[in-house]
């Protein structure tokens, strides 16, 4: 199954410790698995742009600059056998320690 990991910040998590950040180890581990993997970090919400079309009119706005304490800081798309495997992989991501990871299964069009 294909899962998307939303790597999120969490205001209640312990402070980020660069010395404990082993993201390279994690990426290497994930790259060594078979199946799809694609991921990256994301620029903060202040660099977001929102696009809408209403009645044929294009609307482009900067933001949204909502006052959320939690935002998406990165993403990964990973093939896993099942949810337990996805949970295991997510649990080893450094941001599981200073943030949180939301796992969402892909919903393919049949």
């Amino acid at each position, binding site marked *: 199954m294909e899962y998307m990991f939303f790597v999120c910040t969490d205001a209640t998590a312990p402070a980020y410790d660069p010395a404990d950040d082993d993201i390279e180890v994690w990426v290497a581990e994930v790259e060594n698995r078979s199946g799809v993997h694609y991921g990256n970090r994301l620029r903060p919400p202040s660099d977001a742009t929102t696009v809408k079309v209403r009645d044929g009119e294009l609307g482009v706005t900067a933001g949204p600059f909502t006052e959320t304490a939690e935002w998406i800081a990165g993403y990964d798309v990973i093939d896993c056998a099942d949810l*337990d495997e996805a949970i295991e992989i997510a649990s080893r991501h450094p941001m599981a320690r200073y943030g949180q990871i939301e796992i969402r299964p892909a919903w393919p069009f049949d």
Partner: protein
Amino acid sequence: MTGHGTPDRIAEAAARTAAEESARVVSTLIRMTGDFALAEDCLQDALTKALRDWPKTGVPNNPGAWITTVAKNRAIDLLRRASAESRAVQRLAREPAETQRELDNGDERDAVVADDRLTLIFTCCHPALTMDARVALTLRTVAGLTTAEIAHAFLVAEPTMEKRLVRTRARIRNTGIPYRVPSPDRMRERRDGVLAVLYLLFTAGYGAATGQSVLRRPLLDDAIRLTRLLVELMPDDPEARGLLALMLLQHARSTARVDSAGELVTLEQQDRGQWDAAATSEGLALLSRRPPRAGRYELQAHIAACHATATDAEHTDFARIVLLYDELCVVAPSPVVELNRAVAVAMSQGAAVGLALVDGLAARGALSGHHLLPATRADLLRRLGRLREAAREYESARQLAPTEAERRYLDRRLAEVAE
């Protein structure tokens, strides 16, 4: 055949069989088809057929085997008819001979199926499901209760419960929750998740034994039955045994907790002759000796065992109970555990020492708004002869008490100290 029997007897035999065989039948069918709903439907169809056939043919000598065979045949039937793209059919197509042999072979089931039932329990209690969902699915799939029975027990409408079950099965499928016993390095956490579901069922049923909700009382038996099954499947797990012991020791006291007028009776004043001796000895036997690092259920069971083995309240080993609570405060810290520890300290070292601990809890703001805090303070103040303060605390406890039975109990206490 054992004769034709009355409709009541037949319905009872069918219900009993459903309770006893549900986990076996459903877990086998889920493993082979990967489909919770299909497995449950096949069991229901078999039970319906039993209610239709048994009045004519009589209840079979082995109703469990009968139900199992009918449910399996129904599954084979449905799978053969199922559309080609379904997962179950692909699985059947991969290993038709093996699956067919398993479906046909009822005799080997203990060897094969014991694991299946454990798998089923772990899947139903997966942490990626909400607690409500876990409870509902476990009762439906492992315990074999009907949706209507579960809805009644949790005081929700039947369509609401049906919707919850449908969503839960869909979530298992959509999120990819595997049908598998967890890996050894996750076993302890996952087992704790299962025990939490079983204990929640038990406390829901146990609270009901005081009479607020007769409908929930069967949950007590279901919880014990399911925990017994877990102990049977994980015989070497001390926490599973601890939980079963705890349930049995508490259950042994349940009739003595309420007098003939429906009033609450405290542990101290209960007629110990009314305690269920068989349940007590079964509970104690599960706890023959204590390993150096016990878990939360094992510790609580040992505390219950201290009460169960004392001839009366006065001869209870409260010093040992305090030590057990010390450990419990480390393993599973909570304000309620601390409060119970304070009561045990009061019993072994004097009410004043206990009261100081309770005051410490109150000063931290722990348990504020909970009736147990003023009720405990009131009791200790009463023992110390500070009756006016005790009356004030009974009054605040009364205002916070959640049930009528508890309010009446506190009223009686209030009347005593006001005299």
